[in-house]
């Protein structure tokens, strides 16, 4: 579904992403992990087409994102980490606006919006202005908007930020079902390693703009020479410089 080939992004002299290669298969939940500043969000924005690569290319469903931006965007539902929305619209008005932008039929969009608002437990807030929503509610509304046009690929940057446990379970189930039904693929970045461990069929660990490990949990264990007992957190720290944390903590009193 996604093929990233030799992807590089530089900001002046700073290299955010370097020679990245990824392959996300149709129907899988793919986790993108890495410490802060590893280049996850930059990569996701290049996949969606919000940023242009310095080198390399991204293909979605076989189409080059840079060459065919409109066709690829029709297939994608993007959920950013910061829920910036039109605060003066109500939840339903926002979804109908998105439907208009995607060229959906108004009646079909109204039905679908109603279903999604119910699914994300926002139906009581349908006619409230978004400015009165909590962070978690805004996050759920963006997810509803991303699913409105039935995308083949959902790109989610930090899906659990701001969600309460109930919301988190809801979102995890929706994404898993989306992939299990064969109708969608989910590409998500997260700091919550339990989420990745629980949800993802395969993961890639990014460190300083480079992929340091990629594959299923078992494949990653083999790559780092683990005997099979290590949890993702330990593997993650081993790959992304966890020893630095231990050093930093030495001699520090809370």
């Amino acid at each position: 579904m996604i093929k990233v080939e030799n992807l590089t992004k530089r900001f002046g002299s700073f290299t955010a992403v370097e020679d990245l290669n990824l392959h996300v298969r149709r129907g899988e939940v793919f986790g993108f992990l890495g410490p802060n500043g590893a280049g996850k969000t930059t990569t996701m924005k290049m996949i969606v087409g919000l940023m242009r690569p310095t080198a390399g290319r991204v293909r979605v469903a076989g189409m080059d994102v840079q060459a065919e931006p409109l066709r690829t965007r029709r297939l994608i539902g993007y959920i950013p980490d910061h829920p910036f929305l039109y605060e003066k619209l109500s939840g339903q008005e926002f979804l109908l606006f998105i439907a208009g932008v995607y060229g959906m039929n108004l009646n079909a969009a109204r039905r679908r919006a109603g279903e999604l608002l119910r699914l994300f437990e926002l139906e009581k807030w349908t006619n409230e202005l978004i400015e009165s929503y909590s962070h978690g509610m805004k996050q759920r509304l963006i997810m509803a908007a991303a699913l409105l046009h039935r995308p083949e690929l959902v790109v989610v940057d930090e899906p659990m930020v701001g969600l309460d446990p109930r919301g988190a379970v809801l979102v995890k189930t929706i994404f898993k079902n989306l992939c299990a039904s064969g109708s969608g693929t989910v590409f998500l970045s997260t700091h919550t390693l339990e989420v990745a461990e629980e949800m993802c069929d395969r993961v890639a660990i990014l460190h300083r703009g480079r992929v340091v490990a990629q594959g299923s949990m078992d494949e990653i264990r083999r790559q780092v020479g683990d005997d099979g007992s290590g949890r993702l957190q330990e593997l993650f720290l081993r790959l992304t410089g966890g020893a630095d944390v231990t050093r930093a903590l030495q001699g520090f009193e809370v």
Partner: protein
Amino acid sequence: MIEQLRTFALLLGPKARGFLRLARTREHRHPLRLLFFIGLGLVFAFGIYLGSAWFLRQCLQVELVGMLIPRKMMSLVLLILVSILLISTTISSFSIFYLSDDLVLLFSTPVPLGPLYYARFLEMTLHASWMVVFFGLPVFLAYGAVYAAPAAYYLLVVLLFPAFILIPAALGAICAAVLTRLLSARRSRDLLIVMVLAGFVILYLVLRAMQPEKLLEEESFGTLVEFLQMFSAPESRYLPTLWMTEALYPTLLPRPVSGVLPALAIWTSAAALVAISGWVGTALYRNAYARAQEGRLRWRMSREGGKEHGRFLGGWLDRLGGLPGRLTGSLLVKDTRVFMRDTNQWLQLLLLGALAAVYVLNFIYLKVADFSWFTLYTVNHVLMGLVISGIAVRFVFPAVSLEGRAFWIVRSAPVRMGAFLHSKLLIHFLPLAALAVLLSVLSCSVIGVPLVFVAISVALMLAMTLGVCALGVGIGALHPRFTAENPAKIPTGIGGVVFMITSMSFVIIFLLASFYPTFILFRAPVRPENPIGRPFWFFTSLGIMALLGIGAAWIPMVLGRRKLQGLEE
């Protein structure tokens, strides 16, 4: 006490540092822009100084009553200043005391309420009064210059003005605290803004109807003096404006009278009111802030029993969103809703209405003057063009920037940037074109223009409005300010200045090019043998107009599209 003062200084620290680093922020980095605005401000202040000095000299030349007018004028100016200060400090109080984002952090820390209240009070007073002081002080400097005032006068101005400002500031803060405790900060502020703006519009219309330009004529001056002499500014002995006048004015006279008592009255009143405001404010602060939070959270759409009011309008707008060419429909619906739900935005429609009314009124007055209809007709086009440019800088130029941080939604959707910009152009062109046609038809009928020239005027205005709107949308896209918190601030950047210069130049050159063909048509009845004058000039003028129109409508849109396509967060 020392601890409280230290906390007070600590709380002001971030604000002071933020202000001092203003020049370093991205929006203000351009030194030319900063110099331009400082220069413009100084020119205005100097204009006020010159105007006041001229007026005072004129007054002093009128025998008997002339001597009385400057004192009355000082009292009147002070009354106007204190009224403006009272309004601006009350409105600023809602924002600074109850709606600032940093209050969440501050209220969660063990900061005592007293220093927090007074730190906010100082910030609010400076924020709400600097402009009034900047444009009010030149009047008092003019008094000093005309009367060749001694140093004591200037010293008193410097000593008394801070106290004079503190009085309305304290009253404004008390008013905001009580209103926020009863209603909510946001609603109270919006209500106050509506009332003030409506009052301003009415006052503007009344003043315009009085034709103040006639007062500048030499022969009318005596009438003005009589008028002002009859006009009695409220001079209650409890008004600080009277104390200020009684403290300042006697020092200007040849035999100065001591103004110590009124000066003391001003300072003691200011101190007492600041103390009372602190007492009331701190007593209500925590609860009023909590109420403001509730107001923010429960800012519901008007609903009753789950049924939405205004469903008719909502449904009508929804249907527009489903029109063919859905992007334009969706953007139109979204932009209309966002506009109508933002009090700061839709309130400006009131001003626009007043502007249109005043514009047409002006032609009723000008018509009585000794001008040919063709002269008025030509001047009318220049003025209408400039008015459309002025409106466009406020409403069209920010069109792209108003997408704000939510612009990622459009960027990640299957939408061509060209189509997005054309939608924005159409959405803004339609209402502006309607206004342009209305102004054109009304002013032409007031001037008494033949029908064919009304049609030409409408065509010219439509072409010009399209060009101005395309320039606004295009240049707005070239200089987007997606992070601007206040929509009114969007046009104040370098992009706004570029747009104003470009659109005004476009209007003037376009109308210059249109002059020859229009003049030839005007002359046609007396020269029927040569209906197009010199063919070369006639067709060259039409060619220039066509080129200008196409260039203005096309080039900025292409450049804007390229800029938006190349954007990277």
